[in-house]
């Protein structure tokens, strides 16, 4: 067993003294409000923290099996995904794949099937890890998080997850839906892996293209992960308008400009997956690929 002097000094205990299994969301929130407690849902984050020998709060509150926490609900304007939905369920959701293929692609790209059967969507987001895949897709989609504590609730954007308090829990994730008469939406998630599977991405990108009923570009969206502060939404101001004026949908010039901005506005870090300079090139490349696929899907009007 390795003990390196440069390892963290451990002040707290390494194992929780108690695992609590509340039967409702309210009960879970009350337990969290009592303090010195951490949430465990699928258990993957907890396992990694234990492996890294990070101090552990006295109490773990298990929320992985709360009633109603793992449902997907559809309305005319949005789809509401419970925070307890496992990534494996998400990737297999046919209806979601039709509306937001980018989200099911991102969920299905995480780690391995065994790990995806454990990881919950809420846990994956709450980890606040810039390289995680679902948050990149959700950021590009403009998803909102419903967050609760014992007394009240609020809404957060994906990018604000760092503000989640220890007594708060993500209740659900809301994705907007476009009415059929308002045009079509295409989306795509692209992830570049050095080995090809079961690894953190070198770069991961989500892209959305909205076309109006006439087929003209109404809106473009891009988010980039595995960069400092990620997922970073790319500022594409003016580009949708420019693209919308062009006949025949989105052209390569617009896509290249969007890719250029994605590379310009993000700060990747060098690591075992590649140098920062290389990742910048790959961000442009995969932004291009994601937008191209998203535009194609939007034009086909099928979402996929």
């Amino acid at each position, binding site marked *: 067993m*390795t003990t390196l002097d440069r390892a963290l000094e451990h002040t707290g205990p390494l194992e929780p003294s108690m695992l609590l299994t509340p039967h409702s969301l309210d009960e879970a929130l009350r337990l969290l409000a009592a303090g010195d407690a951490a949430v465990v849902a699928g258990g993957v984050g907890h396992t990694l923290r234990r492996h890294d020998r990070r101090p552990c709060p006295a109490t773990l509150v298990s929320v992985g099996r709360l009633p109603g926490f793992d449902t997907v609900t559809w309305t005319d304007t949005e789809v509401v995904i419970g925070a307890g939905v496992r990534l494996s369920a998400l990737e297999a959701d046919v209806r979601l794949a039709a509306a937001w293929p980018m989200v099911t692609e991102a969920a299905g790209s995480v780690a391995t099937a065994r790990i995806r059967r454990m990881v919950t969507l809420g846990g994956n987001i709450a980890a606040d890890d810039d390289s995680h895949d679902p948050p990149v897709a959700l950021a590009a989609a403009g998803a909102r998080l419903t967050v609760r504590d014992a007394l009240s609730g609020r809404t957060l954007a994906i990018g604000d997850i760092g503000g989640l308090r220890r007594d708060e829990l993500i209740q659900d994730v809301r994705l907007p839906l476009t009415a059929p008469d308002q045009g079509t939406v295409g989306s795509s998630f692209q992830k570049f892996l*050095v080995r090809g599977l079961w690894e953190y991405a070198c770069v991961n990108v989500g892209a959305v293209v909205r076309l109006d009923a006439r087929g003209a570009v109404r809106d473009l969206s891009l988010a980039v992960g595995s960069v400092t502060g990620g997922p970073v939404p790319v500022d594409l101001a003016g580009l949708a308008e420019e693209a919308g004026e062009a006949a025949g949908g989105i052209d390569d010039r617009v896509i290249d400009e969007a890719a250029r901005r994605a590379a310009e506005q993000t700060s990747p870090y060098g690591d*075992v997956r590649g140098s920062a300079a290389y990742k910048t090139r790959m961000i442009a490349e995969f932004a291009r690929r994601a937008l191209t696929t998203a535009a194609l899907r939007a034009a086909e009007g099928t979402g996929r």
Partner: protein
Amino acid sequence: MSTAHASAGRAAAADAPQAPVAPELSLDRAVLPPVIGTAVQRVDAVEKVTGRSAFAGDVRIPRMLHGAVVRSPHAHARIVSVDTTLAERLPGVHAVVTGADTARIKWGAFRPDLYPLALDRVRYVGDEVAAVAATDPETARRAAELIRVEYEVLPAVLTLDEALAEGAPLVHDDAVGNLAHEFGYDRGGADAWFERSDVIVEGVWQTTRQWHGSIETIGCTAEWSQDRVTLWVNTQTPFLARQRYATALGLPLRAVRVVQTEVGGGFGGKSGDDNTSVICAILARKSGRPVQLVNTREEEFLAGRPRIPMRYRVRLGFTSDGLVTAKDIDLIADNGAYTGKAQAVLGAATVRHDALFNYRAVRAHSRLIYTNLVPTGAFRGFGNPSADWAVGQAWDLAAARLGIEPPDLFLLNAVEAGSVSAHNHRISSCELKQCIRRAAEAIGWYEKRAAPTPNRGLAMGVSVHVSGRRSFGDYDGSSAMVRLTEDGRAAVIVGEGEIGTGARTTLAQITAAELGLAVADVTVSRPDTDLTTHALGALASRVTYVAGNAVRRAAKHACEQLLGAASRQLGRPAAELWVEDGMVHAPPAAGEDTPVHVPVGVVVRAELYRPNGQPIVGIGSFDNPSEFPDQARFGNESGAYNFVAEAAEVEVDPATGAVTVLELAAAVDCGTVLNPPLAQGQVEGAIAQGLGMAITERFDWADGAPTRPNFVDYKLPTAGVMPTLHVEFADSYEPTGPYGAKGVGEIALDPVPSIVASAVADAVGVRIHELPITAEKIYWGIHRPEPGAPGAADDPAEFPEQGNPR
């Protein structure tokens, strides 16, 4: 007439080429027993897949404690003080040990330079400083964290260039210039042959550290009984490890007993060159209780013995019609902080590939250099993959310069049976040319060449490996006992062991074939230095060839005794008897109608159950018919050489540089294939490990250590990385091998990095000079603003992303 015949016969014999090694076993290859060359199920398959095999960490002994090690966080430092007070006070702690508790003896396979626990200096991040034994692993770990070590950080050498620089800090004070080992030779007069060459190619190629990545980490359980210690270890080489552990512990050899547990992957990494077992024994002695110490995955990376990074400058000369003339290599190898097997690896990496082609002259200068990095050592291939990558790249360049397709160039120059290399490597069986042709055919070489696809590339590489290697003194032998039991089975007692390759299965097949028993009626022991025969263990692809011969002779000896006993019991001449299907058979006796069948067990029991009865125990031994190479590595290192030709097709995505290996064909000459699925498994696994070395495996480094020493960063190839494989075995027979067999464990790994690199060069014109061949390196090769700048590709420092620390 008869006189003429006789003299013609004599003349023919005199003219015949001298067989390099006289076949000691006369065998008719046409009549191999049915159990040879058959897909016999592994003898350990069921217990492994049902989780019942006991690996190192599964050993349980009453009162057993668990150990934890304190390691250096610095690449180079003086130990000012070690304060163990807090650790000793922690409830549950039974022993805390430091260098003061050791025999203060340096140990090592070839160049003793490693203390069991550091005395006054640490030389790499991971160097062992202190250790704890406690009632459970968590307490031990916590106690280890309570040990306070005060260091005075010293300047460190973290690259080969830093270590070789003028006035560089010394890793060991007695190694001037950080030189751990050096040798060289010029055999055949290289300069003269270069002068006569029409085409000369040259380049620098570098490999990086590669870790074994075994599923099971290194582990040991130690228990003392008076003045003897028993170590249950997942080592590949129990008898060799025992010798070194005894030295490290300051004990006579007799005081150490090593028992092999199940081994969850060896690949050279469990060759007993690390301190884990030694520290475990020291903890057990001080605590007075059994202690188990198992590496964490992080420790396996920080303090294992990964593959040696080697930097080759290679120069090859050819005539204009493609005949190779001379080869010159200058090799520097990164030893890390301690030597272990690296010195022997350096030898193989320098000389062995000279047994592939008919070089007229070979010159080499090889140096092993200390650095303040994790020590390096044995890894499947043992220097060959590094040599084959560097020299293979030069051959690929030469093929392009000569305008000759690589398979054709190889065929022009390949060795054959009877060839003798400049180092006196005497090739007995050799089907290298057959392998080259079959690999080319399997990949569809000429069809693909006729219809090239953009961004796809094709390459071929070849390699030679040993079947055992004389390197631990002038002995590369094995011995075995085969005891026939009173219930009609054969118990093979042999000290070679099993590291996952299927060795116990093939040894059982050989025994079954020799004795006419079913494989299910043969058991093969695990090594125990008290109970089994002496053996060198699983290294150098030697077990099938060396131990296979020893076991075969022991089985033959047992069979002779069995038939002798049956002869006495039945009153029939032994020559009339034979064993088949577990029965001794005899034709009908004179005047009788029915043949005689007696179960083997009945004969064995009857031989024992009589006044002064005897057990039936056959013994056999075999020493590799090889030579102990001299200091300059002259000498025939093995009695049999195995060969491979591999061809690969890759596709490169120019937008990312990502390389996909589409197809890989391997044609292997390992003599008779004793068990096809096992041999195929060895080839496929070796190719996977080769692809890891070639493409996926590397770390980020900071301050002399990987930043995240675990599998998150260190990417072993997965099934998804594997190409479509075409594995073929050459029609081959080794006259000195058991039933014609040679080694097969390592060879298929050797050419993989080279063929991937050459295929990438063929696909997109980018030749990578430092492993691994990452997408990023290829990308910058394609998108570099000034592609093809002279010399640029020869300088690894040009690439922003690297596999080596810097």
